[in-house]
């Protein structure tokens, strides 16, 4: 067998690998879509589940999911963005920066179930916040912190140096340069990172199940409990009580995640077009 044939076969296998990933994603999306689309009615989206088989809608779980994600976002964004500003603009390479990066990497790879247990121990047991949206949001913010930090740091580093020089040349201080020049230029990419982190939070299960609880309840105050869409899907699927509603919930979850992904992608593309 000549090298040409080996080459052809090998390239064929690599093509197959690339296509397999697309096919797997397509299969998951199409399957969930076909089985779930029949479920999606205004009633399903807006009313609460009732009865032993959780008939009716999943309204409260949608509210709880958006509530806990939004609150986590509010908690994590200022800290993560300012931390990234420090790492990208102020930090001097050294032991401290190494420790911070190691911590962020570790935080990014801690299994979500560990974060869930930790959240339970700290926010439920020690701080007495109970199963609540606030506990869930605090625990989720630990999960989102490294994601937002990394995205923001990369966004800041991608801002061309000469823009900063222009600002310094005009006599601006460091903070003026960062706040008026660097952060606005990095904003689209920071937003992309925030949106992707929100996607992670919406899809998270193990963290919220032990911090926000499993009670089906429409949370109003941050101290109210709630059940996220993911926890609802998990419960329905494991108990096998209402598979139709499970398909509907899975479809809505996928739609939300896809929307987050597409809008992040659109934002990034628009940013490239404006610059290029």
């Amino acid at each position, binding site marked *: 067998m000549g090298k040409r044939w080996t080459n052809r076969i090998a390239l064929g296998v690599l093509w197959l690998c690339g296509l397999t*990933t697309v096919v797997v994603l397509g299969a998951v999306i199409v399957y969930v879509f076909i089985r779930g689309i029949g479920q999606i009615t205004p009633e399903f989206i807006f009313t609460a589940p009732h009865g032993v088989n959780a008939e009716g809608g999943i309204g409260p779980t949608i509210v709880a999911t958006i509530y806990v994600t939004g609150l986590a976002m509010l908690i994590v964004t200022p800290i993560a963005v300012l931390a990234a500003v420090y790492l990208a*603009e102020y930090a001097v390479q050294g032991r401290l920066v190494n420790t911070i990066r190691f911590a962020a990497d570790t935080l990014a790879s801690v299994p979500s179930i560990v974060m869930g247990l930790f959240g339970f121990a700290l926010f439920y047991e020690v701080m007495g916040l109970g199963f609540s949206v606030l506990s869930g949001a605090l625990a989720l913010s630990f999960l989102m912190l490294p994601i937002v930090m990394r995205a923001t740091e990369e966004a800041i580093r991608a801002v061309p140096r000469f823009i900063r020089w222009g600002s310094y040349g005009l006599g601006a201080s460091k903070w003026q340069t960062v706040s008026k020049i660097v952060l606005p230029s990095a904003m689209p990419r920071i937003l992309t990172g925030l949106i992707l982190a929100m996607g992670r939070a919406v899809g998270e299960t193990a963290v919220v199940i032990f911090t926000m609880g499993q009670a089906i309840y429409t949370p109003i105050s941050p101290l109210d409990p709630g059940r996220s869409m993911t926890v609802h899907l998990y419960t329905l699927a494991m108990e096998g009580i209402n598979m139709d509603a499970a398909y509907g919930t899975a479809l809505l979850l996928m739609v939300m995640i896809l929307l987050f992904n597409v809008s992040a992608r659109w934002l990034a593309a628009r940013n490239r077009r404006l610059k290029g």
Partner: protein
Amino acid sequence: MTEPEQTGRGRVNGGLKMMSRATYIREALLKNLFLLCAIVAVAAVALIFVFTTARGWEVVKDPGLAAFLGGTEWSSTLGRFGILPLVVGTLAITLGSLVLGAPLAIGTAVFLSEIASPRMRSIVRPAVEMLAGVPSVVYGFFGLVILRPIAAELTGGMGFGTLTASVILAVMIVPTIATLTEDALGSVPPGIREASYAMGATTWQTIYKVLLPAAKIGIIDATILGMGRAIGETMAVVMVAGNAPQFFKGLGAPIATLTSQIVIDMSYATGTHKTALFGLAIILFLISMGLVALVRALSRLNAKKA
């Protein structure tokens, strides 16, 4: 990258002479505020470690460190909390997912970086990124309703177990490994490729003999992080593994992992049982931190060599 003279102390001090005292103080305060925010990341890791350890360290007293780490039985009704069956379960599923997922992911990365036309790339790369965004419960659900019946057909059991869990996890670790491998391939200097092609090598020969060896450390890093993802993955595994804390009895037999046992038991655990669950969390935390440290050590080694 910002160059050192811009971020270094010398330049800042030099520049600040021109400022009013108020500006100087404000700048210094802000800098320290940002530093504080960055330290939150360190504090977060410390908090997680301290609280899981505080709740779990008593496993060394009851059931005792030897019985916990070396015990061959996990049974809450008998009060035995030995983690070996769970460790074996985690190992079996992780190994299975790496065997299936790593070649697929590395192949996809090579395809993206070396073969695909820009048009193909614009389809495959978003697909890989979106695979990373699919929630783990949705993967678990998909595995439960689609893969489980197929696995039941193949293995003759219920379909819950190592096979189903490995296939689902393989898909879940593809984005991690593929993205990082593509980065590693992208940082191989183009000159090396051109030299190989100029010698008359085919695309495959260039990939196999030049690019993969050059990106070796990066690919190992990617695989280690994918492994970390597989070890830590929880909900998808709970939904398809069958959750029986027994030793590996074949691809089709139910099994439990370190993560899945926590989810299953947490709803009713009390006393020693709950302490043991936090003990599992400590072990998972140490594994993930160890893997990150390993990856960083490897990268440093790589940077030194280059």
